[in-house]
């Protein structure tokens, strides 16, 4: 699934765009615990989260997350945006809550990143 497809499904605004036209998201992880993101990491995954501090970008980088979705239309501080640009990790923000955003992507065929 491409960034644009995910943004459309989630009616999201793109805060940090990707310079990778071949970005292909294969799975999703919804979490506010960064430890869980690190534990259940999978390649080519999107992270759906309500946390917006820079540590989210760092965690995404380390865990190999390729796209971050903020829920509830949250907009991060500039420092988070700057770090995402520097690490080339795109960020979008959706008006949906974490449950609904996850459900919409699952319904569109995107599986969870770990287990069943």
């Amino acid at each position, binding site marked *: 699934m491409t960034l644009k497809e995910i943004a459309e499904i989630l009616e999201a605004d793109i805060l940090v765009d990707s310079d990778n036209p071949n970005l292909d998201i294969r799975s999703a992880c919804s979490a*506010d*615990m*960064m*430890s*869980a993101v*690190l*534990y259940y*990491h999978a*390649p080519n995954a999107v992270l759906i989260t309500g*946390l917006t*501090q*820079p*540590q*989210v970008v*760092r*965690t995404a*980088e*380390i*865990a*190999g997350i390729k796209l971050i979705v903020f829920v509830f239309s949250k907009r991060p501080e500039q420092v988070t945006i700057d770090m995402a640009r520097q690490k080339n990790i795109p960020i979008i923000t959706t008006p949906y809550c974490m449950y609904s955003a996850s459900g919409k992507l699952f319904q569109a065929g995107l599986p969870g990143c770990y287990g069943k």
Partner: protein
Amino acid sequence: MLWQIGMALNLDESIEQSFQLIGGNFNNAGESSSQLKRILSKLGADESIITRAAVAMFEAEMNVIIYAAAGWVRFTITPQLVKIRVEDMGPGIENIELAMKEGYSTAPDWVREMGWGAGMGLPNMKKNSDEFKIESVVGEGTTIEMVIHFP
């Protein structure tokens, strides 16, 4: 000169770097893990190995930032493996067996509000390492050594 034969990295000499960590300094937390990831990527290591090594090191780094006054982390990359050693001047761990259980945590609420302290850190370091050693003395600090082999 660098090149790769099979999965093992072929280096003329091993690469070693160390970093100081200051407790509570969340702004720079993860810098050394990012650096390890960058170097392994440049060397052409397998992506799953890079992620395992970076995750293991980041978890250890975050534990120092969250719990200790200070510490240092060192990684060594050889053609066969990555070795990560983290030492801190922290409170130490009273019961290592309990701390190794998934979900056990002594983190305060403010740490949990930042998305940490779920009690997954130590189990995750072990999960991502081929070799994992931990030593801790209450009141002095904790030392963790992890080895990840290139297959």
